C-alpha cells in the first residue's frame, strides 16, 4: 500500500502531463476552444433554470444562483461517474504497451475534471458576489451585504477535498470494473440521471418533507450533504451543515478504501482483458 502510493508520487509528472494534455486537447479544433469550459455549463444552467424556474418552481428566490452553485460541482461529479469509468479502457494503447502505476489514469481523469470545475468556480464566485448585492425578494433590489456574509467562503476548500476523494474513490472502482464488464458505462449514465434528480439541485427539501426525508437525501445520498454545503456557502451565505459533511466524508473514505482495494486487485489483469 505504502509502496504503491510512493510509486504514484514518482509518476506525478505523468499525471501532470495527462491532465495538461486533456485540458488543452479537449477543445482543440473547435472555434470557441477553451471557452467551452464555461459555455457548456452556462447553457445547461439556462436549460435547467428555464424548465425548473418557469414550470416546476418551488418558489426559491434567486433560483438561477441556487441552480448554478450546485450544478457546477454536480457536473464534476457526474463527469466522473459517467466518463471516469472508461478512463482505463480508453488508454488501451498505453496499458498494453507500457508499465506505469495504473492508478495514474483514474487519478488524472478526476484531476482534470476537478480543474475544469475550479475554472468554472471563477464564474460561480463572480456571480455569487454580484448576487450578494441583491436582496432575497421577489422585486429586484440592491443591498449592501455585511462582510460576514463572505466568511463561509473559507470552508469551500474543505468541500472540494471531500468531493475530490469521493469522485476519485468512485472512479477507481468503476474504471477497474469497466475493463471486465463493458456495460458499466451505459448503466452509469442512467444512474447519473436518476442520481441528479435524487439530489437537491433544482429543488429544495423543505417543511414536512424535510423531516421525513432528511436521512435519505442528506445522509444516504453521498452528494446530498455536499450540494447542501455549496448551497449554504454560495447561496445562503451561511456555514455548511458539518454533520452532513461528516456523512459525506464517511462516504468519501468508504469510496477510497473500496475503490483502491478493488483497483489494486483488478489492475494486474488489465492488459490481458483489453
Amino acid at each position, binding site marked *: 500500500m505504502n509502496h504503491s502510493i510512493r510509486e504514484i508520487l514518482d509518476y506525478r509528472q505523468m499525471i501532470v502531463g495527462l491532465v495538461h494534455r486533456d485540458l488543452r486537447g479537449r477543445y482543440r479544433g473547435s472555434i470557441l476552444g477553451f471557452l467551452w469550459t464555461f459555455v457548456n455549463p452556462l447553457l445547461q444552467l439556462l436549460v435547467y433554470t428555464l424548465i425548473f424556474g418557469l414550470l416546476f418552481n418551488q418558489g426559491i428566490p434567486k433560483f438561477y444562483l441556487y441552480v448554478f452553485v450546485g450544478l457546477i460541482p454536480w457536473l464534476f461529479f457526474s463527469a466522473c461517474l459517467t466518463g471516469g469509468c472508461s478512463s482505463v479502457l480508453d488508454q488501451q494503447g498505453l496499458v498494453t504497451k507500457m508499465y*506505469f502505476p495504473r492508478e495514474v489514469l483514474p487519478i488524472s481523469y478526476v484531476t482534470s475534471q476537478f480543474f475544469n470545475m475550479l475554472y468554472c468556480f471563477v464564474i460561480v464566485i463572480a456571480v455569487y458576489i454580484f448576487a450578494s448585492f441583491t436582496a432575497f425578494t421577489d422585486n429586484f433590489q440592491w443591498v449592501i451585504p455585511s462582510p460576514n456574509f463572505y466568511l463561509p467562503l473559507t470552508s469551500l476548500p474543505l468541500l472540494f477535498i471531500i468531493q475530490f476523494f469521493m469522485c476519485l474513490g468512485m472512479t477507481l472502482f468503476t474504471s477497474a470494473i469497466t475493463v471486465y464488464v463493458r456495460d458499466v458505462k451505459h448503466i452509469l449514465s442512467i444512474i447519473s440521471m436518476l442520481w441528479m434528480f435524487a439530489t437537491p439541485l433544482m429543488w429544495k427539501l423543505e417543511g414536512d418533507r424535510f423531516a421525513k426525508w432528511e436521512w435519505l437525501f442528506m445522509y444516504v445520498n453521498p452528494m446530498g450533504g455536499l450540494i447542501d454545503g455549496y448551497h449554504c456557502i454560495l447561496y445562503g451565505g451561511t456555514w455548511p451543515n458539518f454533520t452532513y459533511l461528516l456523512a459525506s466524508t464517511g462516504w468519501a473514505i468508504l469510496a477510497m478504501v473500496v475503490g483502491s482495494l478493488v483497483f489494486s486487485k483488478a489492475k494486474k489483469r488489465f492488459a490481458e482483458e483489453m
Partner: protein
Amino acid sequence: MKSKNNAIISAENVSKSFKIYFDKGYTLKDKLLFWRRNRHEKREVLNDISLKIRKGESIGLIGRNGCGKSTMLKMLTRIYYPNSGKITVNGRVSSLIELGAGFHPDMTGRENIYINASIYGLSKKEIDKRLQKIIDFSELKDFIDNPIRTYSSGMYMRLAFAVAINVNADILLIDEILAVGDANFQTKCFNKLRELKKQGITIVIVSHSMELISEFCDRCIWIEKGKIMGDGPTKKISNKYLEYMSKERNFASLNEQDRISIISEKNRRKM
C-alpha cells in the same frame, strides 16, 4: 552464491497462461445470455521458466513466433503478471516495446517529449535535464516546436526513440523495433545502444534477426513452447537454434511417407 546477489532480473519458476476465448462476451448481457460464449481454453504460454540476468549483461531472447518471448518481455516490464512464480527486477526499466506512447498529435514535439518521458516515470526536473540531449538525438532541430501531426513517420519514430533511449534506465527491454529511420539514424541507434552497453546497462532484446543478436548480445536464451531450450553464449545457442529450425523446415518439406518413416525411426530409437 555471489552471482545471485548480482542478479538484476530474476525469474523463479514463472508460468503464464492466457484464457483464450472462442467468442468473448464483454457485456453483461453477453455474459448472462450467451454464457456458452465464455467457453475458453487455457493456453499455456510460459511453463516453469527460471532465469537470472546479471547487471550489465546483454541478452537475446530467441525463438519462433508465438513461443512466448514477447510475453516474457511483457512480464519483465510488468504489463503482464505471472500466474505462478516470481519475477524480481531491481532498477528502472525502460521498455522499447512500443515507441511514442502517449503522443498527442496536436501537441508539439517538445510537449510530447515531456508526456512520453513522464510515462517512463521521469520527473519534470529529470526531463528538463535530458531535454536538449533528446532533441539533439532526434535530429529534429527546428521542427521540435511543430505539432507532431505534421511530422513524417520517420521523424515521429526518431523522436520516440530519442526519448526512450535517453531515459537513463538500468534495464532496457527491446522488442523488435529497431527498424527506425534511415540507415544513418539506425547506425546512430546501434552506436547509442553499444555505448549504453559499455556503461553497464542491462539490455534484453527480443528479435528474429540473428544478425543483430549475434552482433549485440553476449548471452542468448532460446525459448521453445514455453520452456527454455538453451541458455548460454550467443554463438552456441544461436547455432543450435538455427540448426533446429532448418531441420524442422526440411522436415516440413518432406512428403508424408518420408515423415512417417522418420517418426517411426525416432520412436524405434527411443525404445
